[in-house]
């Protein structure tokens, strides 16, 4: 048995575990079975949809923040390492993934269901999440606070859809 020479391309295959949107800064995130992504703008009904923004950071517009993702594994790590129960509706990102190495995707393109995303930067936690939740999650979320993306190809994303490299 022999191995073919040449570089090895690591791969992964993940899934959409939860979807959330909210209309305005501070308001509780609402669970959704499906969300509609609009290329170049954002998510229908979400606070960071470009053109009708009402998010906490909307005074600092950011073209690469059309949809945000968070790892379910990070929620489990925060519970394990800090004893804090952070729920999928509490991290305030739109998409909770399982099996997706989000921190490795900055600058890359990948498929969220049928949509095509480009990761622009890692998200950073915000102090106001501690005010909203009354949980000391700011420090535990540093370096595992999710991913900001722009939407290259839009469409409907459902819970259970695959997430895979483009």
């Amino acid at each position, binding site marked *: 048995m022999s191995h073919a020479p040449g570089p090895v391309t690591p791969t992964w295959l993940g899934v959409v575990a939860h979807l959330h949107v909210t209309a305005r800064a*501070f308001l*509780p995130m*609402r669970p959704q079975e499906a969300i509609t992504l609009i290329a170049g703008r954002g998510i229908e009904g979400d606070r960071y949809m470009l053109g009708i923004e009402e998010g*906490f950071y909307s005074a600092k517009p950011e073209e690469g923040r059309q949809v945000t993702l968070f790892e379910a594994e990070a929620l489990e790590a925060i519970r394990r390492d800090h004893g804090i129960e952070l729920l999928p509706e509490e991290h305030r990102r739109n998409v909770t993934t399982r099996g997706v190495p989000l921190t490795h995707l900055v600058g890359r393109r990948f498929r969220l269901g049928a949509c095509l995303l480009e990761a622009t930067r890692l998200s950073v936690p915000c102090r106001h999440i501690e005010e*909203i939740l*009354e949980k000391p999650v700011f420090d535990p979320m540093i370096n595992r606070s999710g991913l900001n993306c722009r939407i290259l190809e839009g469409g409907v994303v459902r819970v259970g859809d695959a997430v895979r490299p483009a």
Partner: protein
Amino acid sequence: MRLIRTVVREAVAAGPGIRRLVLMDPEGWPLPRQKPGAHIDLHPPDGLVRAYSLCGDPAQQDRYVVAVKREEAGRGGSLWLHDALEVGAEIGVSLPRCTFPLAPDATRHVFIAGGIGVTPFLSMAAALERAGGNYVLHLLHRGALPLPGHLPRHAVLHDTSAAPRPALADLLGAPAPGLHAYCCGPNGLIEAFEAATRDWPSGQAHVEHFVPPPLPPDPEARPFTLVLARSGASAELPAGAPLLPAIKALGGEVEASCEGGICGACKVRWLEGPPLHRDRVLQPEARREYLMACVAGCAGPRLVLDL
């Protein structure tokens, strides 16, 4: 500073000089959650920020209910909320803060309220009714009742215009394990409550001021260096100098509301001190980490804040 957008959906007279406001998201979305006993700041357009206890049922997540007493001699915020704010108008509010929570380990709660000071107990009683908790509300009032029609089932009314004020020790009974007492009202009532509970076990008697008590100068205050750790900015301050303007002058951002050490808006983490805590809201354990910038000072040569 970002605020929560709300619209006035109801504004109804509810007792002597009291206007009860129901605030909702413009499209009726659920609002950030509220704990029993919490309060919010209302931000009228004239910049006069005022804190009000939430007095609705915390389980009704689509609304914040506040009751505003008309204060002719106040700072003016209540007059605007009475005379200028109309149903359908928008008003910005802060996130709810709870500086007056129900004790989670209590088996019985005794509430002592003076007049409009009944408001935090209405949300607490609603939560206890839902959970089957054991409570009694003693409401001391002069003549006409505040918020008639909104008072909880286990309310005992004491009209002090018809009879002398009852002795608080009689209303409270003897301290016992699991018994927690709470008081909200004018400073005179709070002083009487603090006297009546002086010998109670630590942590079983709780007060909420709705008018900041006057603060005498602190004899331990001395000149100090104020340092904002994140920017490294610093300033030399004379003894007793107020922190809030100094923090702002150094480019630090702190929200403030009552500016009298009772509402909890300007809570800041301190890293080096020790601070002089002159607030009426932080528990001893919380003071080891936080101070209230509106009233705190410094007992040492340097005060370093996590800003």
